[in-house]
């Protein structure tokens, strides 16, 4: 039911709301970081050895991809501020493309492990001992949850792109684009933590 007044717009409120929401997202992953640190502490050697099996190359490529995509979405915001609708859409398109490339890389990475019969609940993994079970359990769960966030972020950005196309988001009203950017930066930031935890700390 509309209350009969014009819609009251408050960009700062929208952004505050988004920041608070990002806070909760961070805490969602914080729970997993706690679990990770506890089990890493208890199974130091197994985690150390298992981390060697992940491809640092793909991990690094994915990190670079996400960092670039964060900068393209930031540039897209600047473009809309400068009333350059086409450039803004193009940059959003590149962001989405990079996000998809990230997912494809992730797919090959996961596929590689699964082909080697390393996935939660597999007999091969169970034989390798509890440390490995926990490492790969956490690996699949945390990167999986992160990938889910990437997918949500991509949908968000796609919706925003459509709104730009229809001139619903313009140079004087782009808070939604900014919020999608904030969300994308968060997804990026979480990966910045996941990458060293699983690939680099050995």
């Amino acid at each position, binding site marked *: *039911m509309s*209350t009969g007044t014009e819609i009251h717009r408050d960009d700062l409120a929208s952004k*505050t709301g988004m920041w608070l929401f990002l806070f909760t997202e961070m805490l969602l992953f914080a729970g997993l970081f706690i679990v990770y640190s506890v089990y890493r502490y208890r199974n130091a050697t197994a985690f150390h050895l298992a981390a060697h099996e992940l491809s640092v190359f793909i991990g690094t490529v994915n990190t670079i991809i996400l960092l670039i995509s964060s900068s393209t979405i930031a540039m897209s915001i600047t473009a809309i501020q400068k009333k350059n609708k086409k450039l803004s859409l193009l940059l959003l398109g590149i962001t989405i493309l990079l996000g998809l490339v990230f997912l494809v890389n992730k797919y090959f990475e996961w596929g590689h492990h699964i082909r080697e019969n390393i996935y939660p609940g597999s007999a091969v993994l169970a034989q390798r001992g509890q440390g490995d079970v926990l490492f790969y359990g956490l690996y699949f769960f945390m990167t999986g949850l992160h990938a889910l966030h990437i997918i949500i972020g991509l949908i968000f950005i796609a919706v925003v792109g459509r709104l730009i196309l229809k001139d619903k988001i313009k140079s004087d009203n782009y808070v939604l684009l900014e919020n999608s950017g904030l969300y994308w930066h968060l997804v990026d930031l979480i990966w910045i933590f996941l990458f060293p935890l699983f690939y680099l700390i050995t």
Partner: protein
Amino acid sequence: MSTQKDIAEPSYLDYKGKYKGIFSWIFSTDHKRIGLLYLFSILTFFVVGATLGLLMKFELIAPGKTVMSAQAYNAFFTLHGIVMIFAVVIPGLPAVFGNFMLPIMIGAKDVAFPRLNLMSWYLYVIGVSLVIVSQFAGEGPPDTGWTFYAPYSFRTAGNMLPAVFGAFVLGFSSILTGLNFLVTMHRMRAPGMTWLKMPLFPWTLYATGWVQLLATPVIGITLLMIIAERTLNIGFFDPTLGGDPILYQHLFWTYSHPAVYIMILPAMGAISEIITTFSHKTIFGYKFMVASVLAIAFVGYFVWGHHMFTSGMSGTALYTFSLLTFLVAIPSAIKVFNWISTMHKGSIDLQTPFYWAIAFIFVFMIGGFSGLILGSLAANVHLHNTHFVVAHFHFIVFGGTGFAFFGAAHYWFPKITGKMYDTRWANIGLILFFIGFITLYSPMFVLGIEGMPRRYYDYDEVFHAGNIISTMGSWVLYSGLAIIIINLFSSLRSGTKALADPWGGKTLEWTIPSPPPIENFDETPIITKGPYEYK
């Protein structure tokens, strides 16, 4: 903000929007209608949960099997817990009275994100539906208790997934409500309403909002881990796979202890409003009230370990958690002292909401002191997992939040509905409710000290007498509850018309007509005074 000034603006109940009938409610983004949506859904689930409790007490009237099997009893206390905690007590005051009153009390037209507000209600309904589905679908209802303790929660054959996911969705709904309120208070206070001119009920909602925001994600991820554990066999908390069940308890209580402050803080806020209004006197120690609310919310984060004193922790951790638990009592006590001091030399108007507030203080103190007994390490080892804990918990959560909920309902009923209720029946209901409550839960303290464990459908003959008294109390309580609810509903029809300010309250909601117009205020109020300026 709109500058439209329509003097004869229709009330929010009469307003004709785009939709008709029930759709004018379930598609409404008006905070007042959403508050009532929550009220009706929460009241429904409250009656469901209370009926389950009544049946459980009936089972306990005699040792051995009375009306239900052991497994059925397990399912009953699980559903009772999930429904009461996640669907009634946590959203209770914030989602109903917070939604309805918060924007009005700070002089705003609505919350910051009205559509998000409606979405929270939908998430709430979806969450509860999932919990209910878990009772009927699959291989039998969940039987873990509302705490979903590992490793049993992924070993049991019970249908855990919908229940756990339902709790997750309810948590999400709670986060969005808290987020909405926080932004509303930061951005939409009326001109001149500085933070320290904000009434106490919004203040408690502010602290609650932060707790909802900062604690709920932790239970969210923990519940997701339980789901992953059951479906994918990951091993987070499964000792056979290297996981640690104690870690689950830590994560669970990291949320679920702050969650009791989500339950009690808005209750304290509502009680503060009631006491100052019916004492016709400024609240005593306003700044201390604000500080104690924030202190409770803050220290409340660091006491979760007191749920796990017997689970295995280092000595240092035990002492620290025990000390912190005692520290939480200080701000709570400050609030009680300030309530009493507010009444001192006030012009007290003895009305139903005020009686509820007095009853609240009484049961809250019993609950609080029994909490200190449980917080001391030596006593805890003896009392852990006995009926003493059940009694303490119900004194705080049902006695605290429940009494405050009904107090708030009787306090704001004239404002919300525009009708007065029958005071005589309201008081009779309250007396029965109070007597029933005390009779139901007090014997549990004794039973607990004598060693009767919680969560069993059977008990030794020595506990028989206490259980009979307790069960009879549940009948009185339930009849009191029935009278209260029937009285309020029949007053909708037969009640006399309520004035704008029937109690002589000073906060903003009493400056507008009852029921409030659709836009709350004809003109945005300009605040120059503190919230409770009585001369």
